[in-house]
């Protein structure tokens, strides 16, 4: 298997590229089917040059590729890079998964849940096992 790592610079470029609604929309369209820059430009309330600029930012982040076909510039999505951006988001979920695991370990110190008396109020709840 080819091991391909993203550098911090590449990660920065990906997230910068995806920080704009038009660029996210372009990515979603070209993942489904490749499109020419002029077709894309027709869809947005902005100049051809502005759309071309957005495509260039996405291209630098390797989220899309651009190829010349006759008179047209065809834009297609790079699934591999998009999946990696997705995986970055997933790593944030992992932070919370770890937190839940620690919560669960903390609760396990109480013993079986059925033996637990309901705390009388929020301030004098059982603090068993919290001073270790």
């Amino acid at each position, binding site marked *: 298997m080819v091991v391909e790592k993203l550098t911090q610079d590449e990660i920065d470029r990906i997230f910068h590229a995806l920080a704009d609604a038009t660029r996210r929309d372009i990515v979603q369209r070209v993942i489904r089917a490749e499109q020419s820059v002029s077709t894309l430009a027709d869809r947005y309330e902005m100049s051809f040059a502005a759309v071309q600029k957005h495509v260039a930012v996405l291209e630098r982040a390797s989220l899309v590729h651009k190829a010349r076909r006759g008179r047209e510039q065809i834009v297609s999505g790079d699934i591999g890079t998009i999946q990696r951006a997705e995986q970055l988001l997933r790593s944030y979920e992992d932070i919370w998964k770890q937190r839940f695991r620690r*919560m669960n370990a903390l609760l396990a110190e109480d013993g079986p849940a059925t033996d637990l008396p309901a*705390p009388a109020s929020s301030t004098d709840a059982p603090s068993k096992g919290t001073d270790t």
Partner: protein
Amino acid sequence: MTFAIDATHDTENLTMTVVAQLDATPERVWQLWADPRQLERWWGPPTYPATFTQHDLVVGSTTAYHMTSPEGDTVPGWWVITAVDEPRSLELRDGFAEGDGTPDETMPITSMRMTLEPAEGGTRMTLVSHFDSLEGMEKLIAMGMKEGMTLAMGQIEAILAN
């Protein structure tokens, strides 16, 4: 009943949802959030522990905490409690602070909503996090999300190596 976690995220809306089934009553789980001594046992990983110096689950109140890196550097953070319905739900905003504890306006803020429901003889905890912007997420990545410095970056490396 066993401990279970489920996570989903919505890239488009910058929202992440994590659901866990915990083996305790909602009142007991609430204490994990309400008692600063219990909170600091799960908020940060053992390698990046959190210390809560000011914490009270009252609407409008500010929580002050800091994380301590393995090298001994501290990263201060704050919460503002925006909604409290004990023991059912809690909403807060989480951000970075300056050295003196005042909120750092240039840093990203994460909004969180935590809900507890009795389920399967225990409690189902749902946590929804929302990022203000992708630029904010970008910054959080660079910062390693405070505590995640070691944890998350290690995981990102492992993921990217696949």
